[in-house]
């Protein structure tokens, strides 16, 4: 894994640190006192059975879900702290693809790069699209795509936006084999350049080199019996 490190050096200093994180859902503790560290250049696979709390953890990392206690730091600063510049560094892809059905694919992608204050040329968008074999769809409206095509559009953001932390919830779902390979390549490349990748998946991905596996376990069953007692 000899990385070329051609990207800005600030990359390598990035590191996401989770300390004593406790998350509740529905007034029940879901994840308790979790410590995790995601270092620069690493790919982390979050796994666990359905309902273990993977999505909840990711949403907490992204600052969307409140946590009961503990802290989440990015480059040594709390993620909510402006110095951390977390909102610019983070790219979070969730189940909801966050694309507008009224806009064309190209417009949707353009908006997100604009929001990062990064100007992206049309040809860059075209390059990604042709890698993903959706170049002929760029002028179509998002609603008129198939499930997998929509997913691909959302994945294009990974390449177009220069984030430093990818948090991807089930990114391999609905993709055909070729696109799965494309995505694992991108993930490995990104990690090589010093990025941090956290993803969930229920399927094993051939050819994807994972540096860290985090297993979450279901607290529900224990609590159920507690509640019954």
């Amino acid at each position, binding site marked *: 894994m000899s990385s070329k490190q051609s990207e800005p050096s600030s990359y390598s200093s990035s590191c996401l640190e989770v300390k004593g994180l406790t998350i509740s859902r529905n007034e029940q503790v879901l994840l308790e006192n979790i410590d995790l560290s995601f270092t620069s250049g690493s790919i982390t696979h979050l796994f666990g059975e359905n309902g273990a709390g993977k999505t909840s953890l990711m949403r907490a990392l*992204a*600052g*969307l*879900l*409140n946590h009961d206690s503990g802290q989440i730091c990015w480059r040594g600063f709390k993620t909510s702290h402006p110095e951390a510049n977390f*909102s*610019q560094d*983070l790219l*979070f892809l*969730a*189940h*909801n*693809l*966050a*694309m*507008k*059905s*009224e*806009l064309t694919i190209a*417009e949707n992608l353009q*908006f*997100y790069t*604009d*929001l*990062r*204050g990064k100007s992206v040329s049309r040809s860059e968008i075209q390059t990604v699209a042709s890698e993903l074999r959706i170049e002929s769809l760029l002028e179509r409206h998002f609603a008129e795509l198939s499930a997998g095509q929509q997913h691909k559009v959302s994945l294009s953001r990974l390449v177009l936006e220069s984030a430093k932390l990818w948090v991807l919830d089930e990114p391999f779902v609905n993709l055909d084999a070729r696109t799965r390979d494309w995505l694992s390549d991108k993930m490995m490349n990104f990690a090589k350049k010093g990025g941090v990748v956290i993803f969930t998946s229920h399927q094993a991905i051939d050819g994807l080199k994972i540096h860290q596996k985090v297993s979450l376990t279901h607290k529900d069953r224990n609590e159920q019996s507690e509640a019954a007692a």
Partner: protein
Amino acid sequence: MFITLLKRELMLARRNWVAVLIPLFFFIMVVSLFPFAVSPEAEFLRQIAPGVIWVSALLATLLSLDFFYRGDYQDGSLEQLLIMSSPTQVALSKVVAHWLVTGLPLVLVSPLLAGLMHLNYSPDGILLERGHTPIMMFSLLLGTPSLCLLGAIGMSLSLGASRNGMLVAVMILPLYVPILIFGSAVITASLGNSGYNAQLAILAAILLFALTLTPFAIGRALKVAVS
């Protein structure tokens, strides 16, 4: 950042230009229901005109909120916006877009309704050369931004709650009462040839008040909605 956000909202609205016209049509249609339902007599219409126009404008503003908030909430865009920029900015961009796309056109189309409701006639049926239309438009111009701001709070709060568009209406209508009172009072005063500066001043004060306080509240509400 704000400009990017605002441009996005306006672009979405332009794409849905029909959706933008719809509140206008709604405004016109609801006003025109009243002659059918009450009486088509000119003098009578003139008397209820201020109230009817204001109530309709208020409903049109309220119901058009959905377009600017619900979609972004449901397809996950709102989450992304809140992750990538500040809640207050998101809130402001939405309110500004909503007003530009709905509030302002309502003001501009209102003279038509003034015509339908015989607002430019004197009580004895003579066409006035300087009618009450300008002052009606001015009252709407001052009032609609407040309607957008207050409505946005309700809308953001209701996002996470239920799929029910009317929930906003029920939450926010009571808050609209002062705006409604002073807004329609302006026109009524003008119809009665009395002064309306005090009412206008109050409308302006409400607007200032709303402008300074609500964006923060809307941002907070949006943040809660996605969590």
